[in-house]
Structures are given as structure tokens and as C-alpha cells.
């Protein structure tokens, strides 16, 4: 309890900074403002495309800066970049000036990505001694951020109703300054956990290999990408419908608040078990296409807003089980690379999407451009039907086979390291113990302690997905070997080998844990 309070006090400046930084009053009316200063659908698309290229490229040097210099410093720089962005944005009279403002926003995003998480992670580690509270703490940061976004969406719409649109930009600047000042009170964690940042090329190679692995994995990655296109497309272009329908500025607030809260609510929806039931998936797949079609045919402002929010909700919800499928289907060795690679792929796929949407909408009207959403929506729906309703282990297995085709299959480690035995050419006792283990039961070791249980839990989580599935089904859930073989489509030998590997890894962790405990006492 004391620890948690200490952590709360430690991170209070960060919480406050996040809140003030999240109050972006200009966001809901941005597209309306851009239209006023001369943007067309085509130039909005072009700007989004440029943005989609710039951000992933900038992310790498900014990560190095955060690791080598100071994370708090990088966060402050990031906030300064947004201040510059909103000031330039607010003064913009032309498309060119606004694109410069957007570039500074790109700098902010690249600087901020990963930095905030690293600070939270290290602070949690320093204050509590382990990383267990990370998710909860990060959840709190995200909650504060979402609350600020929703509040500022509503406030921004209202301000725009009664004041010039530019005012929302200028009013955001002091809030951001406050956010930067708050960071000065943050005591930066000194633990510098060197983030493993894969090279862009490494990520792409890992992803390409995984994609070439074929089967379900390809479908899972495709669904991730098209889902993200719809999501990003709504955020980037959704407000253009409001511009086209000439809705009053105050409606931009609820529209943006709706899209923003759909992000949070969608995540909750997607985590429900029933969400991946076959009939549910069918209904939602039809709903995705229906939403896209309504965007083409409807010219009723409230309906369009509702449809956009619903589409966002569905796409975010779909992304939750899809991410889980992706995770299950990829061996842990390349998981991080594939995860970032898929992220990069999404950004890159957004470039042609943005350009085509912009050009078509410009030339033939928004309702023609919206057909691109329908096309992507249909692909999304088909992939949903293919990827989502499967029982989890079956999909994971299909993915594993896919990944295994491109990668050496998971090496089965012996339960005890080979150096604990005498070598095969030992004259007296080949293959017998050189360094035998000692029994735990009745040894007075705390085998029942919560710490031992926690060690087992974390060892299980660290296992490669395929071994973890087997040991969770067998030893945690207590299912029979036959059930597990059937569920995962494994041979009896493979199932036993994976289980033995997993138990061996957990055993090794426990052995080291008990040795440390003994050493400490």
C-alpha cells in the first residue's frame, strides 16, 4: 500500500501533464478549419499520406534520443513540438503553412511514442521493485488521456461555435505549456531499461517471413491492416463528411467525442467472449459493410455521425481478438518484430489509401470516395468471417504451422541443462548427474509461498506461445493429454515434448528462485 502511494506521488506530475496535454481543443474542428484555409479532399489525403510516411521514419531516432539522453527531456521536447504545431496551425492561412504545422505534430508523435511508457515502466519498477503494477498504472494514464480527449472534443466544438476556429488552436497552447511545466516536477527514473528497438528492415523482414508463412497468419495480418485502414480513415477523413454536409461547428464536438469514446468502448466490446461467436461475427461483419454503404448513400448529418461512431466501435472491437490471434500465431522470438512490422505495414498501406481517397473525393465527390471505404469494409467483413469465429487453439495452430514453414520450429530445451550431467564419453558414469538437483518437498523451502506461485506465473507468461498453450491446458486447467492433442491438433509425442519443455523451463525458474530465496535468508 505504501508502495502504491509512493508510486502515485511519484507519477502525479505525469498524470497532470497527460491531462493538460490531452486537452486538444482544435482536434474536433481541424478538418473544418483546413477546408476554410483552402484544403481540398485531395490535399487532405496528401497530407495524411505524407504524415503516414514521416512518423514511422522519425520514431527510430527519437527512441535512440530517449534512451541515450533523457526521457523526461524527450517528453518536454515533444510537448514543445505540439506548441509550435498549434501556433503555426492557428496562424495558417495556406495549405503549405498548415502542412508545416502537421509536420511538427508528427515530430511530437514520434517523440512521445514509447517514451511515456518507458517512464511509467521504470518508475513502477523503481517504486515497487517489480513491474506488476505497470498495466494498472498505464491504464490510469490512458484513462486520464481519454477523459481529456473527450472533454476537449466537446469543449472545442462549443468554442468553435462562438469564436473563430483559430481560437481553438491558440487556446490549446497555454494548456500545453502547463503540461510541459508539470513535467519539470517529474523525478525521472534512473533505471534505463534499454528498449529493444528493432531496425525497420529487421521488422519488415520478420513480418515478410511471417506473411509468407501463409495460411491463417496471412489472413490475420491482412485483417489487422484493413481494420486499421478503416479506423485511421475514419479519424482522418470522417470529419470531411461533416464539412460536406455543412453541419454547424458545435456538432463537431460530439462527433469527435463519439469517435474517441468508441476507441475505448470498442476495446471493451472486443474483449467479450461472445464477440467471436460465429453468429455474432456474421452480424458484425454485415454491420461493417452496412456502415460503409451508409456513408456512401446518406446525407443526413446525425445518421452519418452515428454510422461513423458505430463503424469505429466495430473496427476497434475486431482489432482486439485479431491482435490476440496474431500474438498466438507468432513465435515469441519474432513477436516484437512482427508486431512493429505490422504497425509499419499499416502506416504504409495508409499512404495509397489516403491518396486515392483524397483524389477520388476531390474529383467525383465524397460519396464516390466513400466507395473505397465500402471496398475495404467488404474485405474486412470477409476476413472477419474467416479469422474470427475459429476456436482459439485451432487458429493458433494454423498460424504456428504457417510460421514454422518460414522459421525453424521451436527448439525443445531439456528439462535440466546438459552441463548438469557427466558427458557421454565419461568413463565411469556417462549421462549421470554431475550436479544433481535436491528435493524441494520437506526441505523447508517456501514451495507454497505467494512468491513461488508468482514465479511460476511469470515463467508461464514468458514461455513461447505454443509451449504455454500446452502447459496452461494441461497443468493449469488440468485437461487430459488426449483433449489437448485434439484441441491443438498435435501428435502425442509433440504434445508431450512441448509440455516437458514448458515444465522444464518453469522448474528451472523455480530452482533459481529458491536459490535466491535461500541466499537472501
Amino acid at each position, binding site marked *: 500500500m505504501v508502495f502504491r502511494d509512493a508510486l502515485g506521488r511519484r507519477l502525479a506530475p505525469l498524470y497532470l501533464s497527460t491531462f493538460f496535454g490531452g486537452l486538444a481543443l482544435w482536434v474536433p474542428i481541424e478538418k473544418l478549419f483546413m477546408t476554410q484555409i483552402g484544403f481540398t479532399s485531395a490535399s487532405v489525403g496528401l497530407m495524411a499520406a505524407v504524415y503516414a510516411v514521416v512518423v514511422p521514419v522519425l520514431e527510430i531516432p527519437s527512441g535512440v534520443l530517449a534512451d541515450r539522453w533523457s526521457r523526461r527531456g524527450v517528453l518536454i521536447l515533444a510537448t514543445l513540438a505540439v506548441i509550435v504545431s498549434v501556433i503555426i496551425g492557428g496562424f495558417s492561412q495556406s495549405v503549405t503553412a498548415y502542412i508545416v504545422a502537421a509536420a511538427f505534430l508528427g515530430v511530437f508523435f514520434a517523440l512521445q*511514442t514509447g517514451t511515456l511508457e518507458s517512464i511509467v515502466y521504470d518508475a513502477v519498477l523503481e517504486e515497487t521493485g517489480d513491474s506488476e503494477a505497470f498495466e494498472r498504472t498505464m491504464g490510469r494514464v490512458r484513462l486520464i488521456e481519454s477523459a481529456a480527449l473527450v472533454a476537449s472534443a466537446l469543449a472545442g466544438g462549443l468554442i468553435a461555435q462562438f469564436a473563430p476556429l483559430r481560437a481553438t488552436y491558440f487556446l490549446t497552447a497555454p494548456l500545453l505549456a502547463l503540461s510541459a511545466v508539470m513535467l519539470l516536477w517529474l523525478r525521472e527514473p534512473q533505471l534505463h531499461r534499454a528498449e529493444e528497438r528493432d531496425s525497420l528492415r529487421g521488422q519488415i523482414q520478420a513480418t515478410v517471413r511471417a506473411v509468407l508463412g501463409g495460411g491463417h497468419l496471412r489472413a490475420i495480418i491482412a485483417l489487422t491492416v484493413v481494420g486499421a485502414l478503416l479506423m485511421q480513415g475514419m479519424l482522418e477523413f470522417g470529419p470531411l463528411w461533416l464539412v460536406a454536409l455543412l453541419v454547424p461547428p458545435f456538432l463537431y464536438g460530439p462527433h469527435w467525442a463519439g469517435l474517441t469514446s468508441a476507441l475505448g468502448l470498442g476495446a471493451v466490446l472486443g474483449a467479450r467472449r461472445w464477440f467471436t461467436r460465429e453468429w455474432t461475427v456474421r452480424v458484425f461483419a454485415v454491420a461493417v459493410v452496412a456502415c460503409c454503404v451508409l456513408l456512401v448513400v446518406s446525407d443526413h448529418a446525425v445518421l452519418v455521425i452515428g454510422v461513423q461512431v458505430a463503424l469505429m466501435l466495430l473496427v476497434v472491437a475486431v482489432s*482486439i481478438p485479431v491482435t490476440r490471434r496474431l500474438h498466438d500465431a507468432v513465435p515469441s522470438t519474432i513477436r516484437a518484430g512482427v508486431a512493429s512490422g505490422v504497425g509499419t505495414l499499416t502506416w504504409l498501406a495508409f499512404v495509397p489509401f489516403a491518396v486515392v481517397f483524397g483524389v477520388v473525393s476531390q474529383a467525383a465527390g465524397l460519396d464516390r470516395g466513400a466507395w473505397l471505404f465500402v471496398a475495404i469494409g467488404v474485405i474486412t467483413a470477409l476476413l472477419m468471417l474467416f479469422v474470427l469465429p475459429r476456436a482459439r487453439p485451432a487458429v493458433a495452430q494454423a498460424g504456428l504451422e504457417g510460421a514454422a514453414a518460414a522459421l525453424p520450429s521451436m527448439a525443445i530445451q531439456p528439462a535440466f541443462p546438459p552441463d548438469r550431467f557427466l558427458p557421454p564419453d565419461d568413463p565411469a558414469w556417462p549421462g549421470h*548427474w554431475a550436479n544433481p538437483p535436491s*528435493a524441494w518437498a520437506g526441505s523447508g523451502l517456501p514451495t507454497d509461498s505467494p512468491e513461488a506461485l508468482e514465479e511460476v506465473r511469470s515463467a508461464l507468461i514468458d514461455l513461447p506461445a505454443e509451449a504455454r498453450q500446452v502447459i496452461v491446458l494441461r497443468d493449469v486447467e488440468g485437461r487430459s493429454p488426449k483433449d489437448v492433442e485434439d484441441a491443438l491438433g498435435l501428435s502425442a509425442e509433440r504434445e508431450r515434448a512441448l509440455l516437458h519443455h514448458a515444465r522444464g523451463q518453469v522448474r528451472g525458474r523455480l530452482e533459481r528462485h529458491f536459490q535466491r530465496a535461500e541466499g537472501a535468508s
Partner: protein
Amino acid sequence: MTSRPQPEADLQCVEVVEGLTAYLDGAVDEGQRRRIDSHLAGCAGCSAALDQFRTTIKLSGRLTAADVSSLDPLTRDRLETTLRRPRRK
């Protein structure tokens, strides 16, 4: 430091420990099971290994599926990226 098994037991310790999961599953034939039993009876190291396996299994059994399905890093990244999107532009 350990009482070594009789050579006529014919199994090496390394074989016994790598076969423990099969042994515990009852997936070995009768002859093999008897050989393992007699090896275990004479080898403190291997019976300690068996004991460690049993403790490991018992501890895993005290967890629930929910304990080990906490939000994995990938899902977390994805969620965080998703929630951050609106600020991007």
C-alpha cells in the same frame, strides 16, 4: 554426493529426467516403467528431479487460466497505439 544407480539399471539419469513427463503421463510401457522405478529407487538425483517436477506441476495447478492470460505486450502495444490515435491528427 549422490548415490549412484546400479549400472545394470541400464538407464542414464539424463534419459530418466527427459522421460519424466511421459512417465508421469503413464505413457511408457510396463518394462520401461519398471526400469525407471528401479532407477528412481536407487538415484537420489533423479528422485529429486521427479520431486521438483511434481512441485512445479502442483504450483501450476494453483494458478487459473486468467492468471496467465494477462494482457500480453503485443495487445498492450496495440491498444495503446489505438488509444493514442486521435491525437495523431
